[in-house]
């Protein structure tokens, strides 16, 4: 009986398919099942005339969910529907067409889809235009703990272009013995292209000292052409030369972090150089400074922070090498807050668990490496080897030689 029923059901289904195909041919119906968006990587860069200079990078994952990165810093995880809305937001689809397309693909009425899209777009716009707004409280976003979601690619690729350091730098500061070769410009371009292909929205050039590579501007421009956000971490010595800095800015540099050597005036010159171009070009480049709190500078730390704030730096990275200075670090953090300097803590400066943020996060307090290493970001050595993060000598593969699947397991 059951077999017979099954046979009947199969026959009915086949008949229904024939009817459905007929209906589709005469335009009364569509039978091709709607599927989530194809995996892909899409960018949107606000035009220069826009009052808010922002970039959006949308990565559609294989399951239809998505990752939207705002200004390479705010990471939003989207469900399938939100991903579709973000896709249309990034592609500037007119709202009425969005409702039409969503209605065709989902069991939802056009008015509801239109209302949901308007709500989504308004929230995103508010997030972009009002950086101080708490999105959980005021925009009804959910919160997810950083680096806990499964990703198809990291948010950022830190590319150590070279381990060379300026003359006079302490010997052994970089692992020259382990990494003996440097990739060519063409090879780095391959890596940048591969990063774009797998959906990494953000490239940070670091070192050693990346400004020692003559092709830095060329690589910045190459990444910019893909719509990627680019940054440089440097000691700033070379950036005091305003002409050199101008070439980097013209190449599309989006942000820079100066690893401060407070006793060297060149460091401060580089900040002045940025300030100069910011004023001349009316450029909104984001500058952060990294300051390591030591026994030597602990007493002047507030004065140093004041000087950093006055130089136009927009964010501060703080760390301490001596655990005994933990309380000083907290005071420095408070002083930075008073000077309206937000903290950044995940860029590949010499890492220590003793940064002000990890000190407050119980879960990460005992970690020896940053929580996002190997997940939110990867680190590429000058020879193309991929590590989870700077200073974590666990080779995951080679960016040039290995398939992405092998590197990103």
């Amino acid at each position, binding site marked *: 009986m059951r077999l017979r029923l099954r046979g009947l059901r199969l026959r009915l289904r086949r008949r*229904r398919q024939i*009817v459905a195909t007929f*209906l589709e041919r005469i*335009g*009364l*119906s*569509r039978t091709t099942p*709607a599927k989530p968006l194809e995996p892909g990587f899409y960018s949107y860069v*606000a*035009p220069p005339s*826009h*009052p808010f200079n922002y970039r959006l990078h949308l990565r559609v994952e294989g399951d239809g969910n998505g990752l939207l990165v705002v200004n390479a*810093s*705010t*990471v939003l*995880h989207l*469900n399938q*529907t*939100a991903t579709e*809305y973000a896709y249309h937001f990034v592609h*500037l*689809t*007119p709202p009425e067409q969005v409702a039409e397309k969503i209605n065709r693909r*989902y*069991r*939802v009425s056009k008015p509801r*889809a239109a209302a*949901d899209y*308007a*709500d989504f777009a*308004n*929230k995103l*716009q*508010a997030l*972009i235009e*009002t*950086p*101080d*707004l*708490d*999105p*959980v409280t*005021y925009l009804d*976003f*959910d*919160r*997810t*703990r*950083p680096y806990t*979601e499964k990703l198809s690619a990291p948010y950022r690729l830190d590319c150590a272009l070279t381990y060379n350091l300026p003359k006079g730098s302490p010997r052994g500061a970089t692992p020259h013995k382990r990494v003996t070769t440097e990739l060519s410009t063409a090879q780095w371009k391959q890596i940048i292209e591969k990063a774009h292909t797998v959906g990494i929205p953000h490239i940070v050039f670091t070192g050693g000292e990346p400004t020692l590579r003559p092709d830095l501007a060329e690589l910045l421009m190459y990444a910019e052409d893909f719509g990627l956000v680019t940054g440089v971490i440097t000691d700033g010595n070379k950036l005091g030369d305003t002409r050199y800095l101008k070439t980097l800015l013209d190449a599309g540099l989006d942000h820079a972090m100066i690893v401060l050597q407070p006793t060297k005036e060149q460091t401060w010159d580089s900040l002045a150089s940025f300030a100069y171009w910011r004023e001349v070009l009316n450029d909104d480049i984001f500058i952060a400074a990294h300051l390591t709190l030591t026994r030597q500078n602990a007493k002047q730390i507030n004065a140093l922070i004041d000087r950093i704030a006055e130089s136009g730096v927009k964010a501060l990275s703080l760390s301490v090498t001596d655990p005994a200075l933990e309380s000083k670090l907290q005071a420095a*953090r*408070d002083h*930075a*807050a*008073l000077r*309206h300097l*937000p*903290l950044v803590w995940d860029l590949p400066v010499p890492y220590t668990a003793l940064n002000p*943020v990890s000190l*407050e996060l119980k879960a990460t307090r005992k970690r020896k490496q940053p929580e996002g290493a190997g997940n939110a970001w990867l680190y590429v050595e000058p020879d193309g080897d991929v590590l989870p993060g700077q200073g974590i000598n666990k080779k995951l593969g080679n960016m040039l030689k290995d398939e992405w699947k092998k590197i990103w397991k």
Partner: protein
Amino acid sequence: MKKRIFFLGILFLILLVPLNVAFAQNYLFAVPREQVDLYWETNGTLTIEYLIVFQNYGSPLDVVDLGLPNANYSVANITATIDGQPVDSIDYDSPYIDIGPAIYFGSNAIPPGQTGTFRARITNITGVLYTDSEDENYASAVFIPNYFGSEFVTGSSDITVVYHLPAGVQPAEPKWHIADHPGFPDTPTTGSDSQGRITYTWRNSNGNVYSEYLFGASFPKSYVPAASIAEPNFWQRYSIDPEFFIPFLFCCCFALFIVAIIWIGVVSDRRRRMQYLPPKIAIEGHGVKRGLTAPEAAILLEQPMDKILTMILFSTIKKGAAQVAKADPLEIAVKSPFPKDLREYETQFLAAFKEGDKPARRRAMQTLMVDLVKGVANKMRGFSKRETADYYRKISDEAWQQVEAAGTPKVQSKLYEENLEWTMLDPNYDDRTTTVFTGRPVYAPYWWGRYAGTTAGTGRTVISAPSRSTGGGRVSLPTLPGADFAASVVGGVQNFAKSVTGNVADFTGGVTKVTNPPPPPPKSSGRSGGGFSGGGSSCACACAGCACACAGGGR
């Protein structure tokens, strides 16, 4: 969509085509007289004799389509004349009626304006008798005289229908069927013909030949062979006219088909589409921001600004950096140099009090609050405002629970002194303070003298400040009535507002216009596809009565 309209259009055209067939005729005539004699024979057959007088008003009348009860007739059994002249030809099957011959007049066609008498005799029609539905021993004979399309006929007609029952039927045996037609009598005239057969005659001198008139009679089956009596077929049994029913059924099926197509279309389209879940956005960010001081937490919890400044006042007094010099209006004596453990906002607070000019002091206090709000906002970047606010509410609540659960006044006073700023985070701290301490002695904290020691002029209890223990020695703490203590603590906020901030709403407005400036006039967003509102106010909680931090939690 165009494809769909085209398809539906074709379907409607198919429906409309049959309606066009009969419009090419231009016949017009009157029938002044029509007589039909129906001879129900003893062999079970029917003989029909027609006499029809035509008065022609239209095209030459050259043919008559004669409707018959069924197809059991033969052309060989049909004779017909027009004005006594034989007709030209007879076709078995008329193309214009369902059942019946077409009789062509040929050269004897009736010209326009002329009259002609048509006679026809059809014999040996079988299958015309049925069992009577009311009496199975009777045979029923039912007949509808020929009728024409109303568009061809004009004028009235004298119509006579005569039933000649089978020979031998006795006068008491037959029954007529009621003829419920206007103009015809219900009861036929009974008589007998030249052969002695019983006749039923229905006549209407003002009838018409375009209406269907049904007549009938029944007689005992025994007068005809049993085999000649047909059983009613499906249509006859249920009195359904197949001519009407089949097109009706076709239309129903077609309508059903259309409905089914639409239904299948809707269902398959629905199945094809994916399930819709409301768009959901989750932002990566840390949860609770620990390490905020009580005034900072108060900013986050949007506490009134005079209360926050009073909290700072208490903290500077506790740290020995200040002492109340005069209660009303409030003046404090600032210790110089400042103790080392002061926070930035405490230093700013003391500096503000050094301003002798009241408006200048108020402005300095506003600057302090602006810096404090912005500082908290910076500290909150990357952390959840909601979770952090909940965390500090819980701390405040736990502080109160400890104070309220304390077993002795001494322990209670100690806990209250330790947690004073945290208890002040409670929006109902004033009521709670009054409730907890009224009616019991309070051990004044070591710094109480610096806060309330100079309030003699205000009528409060004067307490000498105890010295703080620096070693392990015991400290003798003075006590004071709980009600006075509570009033002094609670009154501190009102006193601060009265003396320093002035109108709290105005003071707060001066702060929030810096921390939460009104949104700029709308600009073109630059997104060609958008048309969205530009994000609205810079802060959703920019209310005048709260110190809004607007911290960027979650990022």
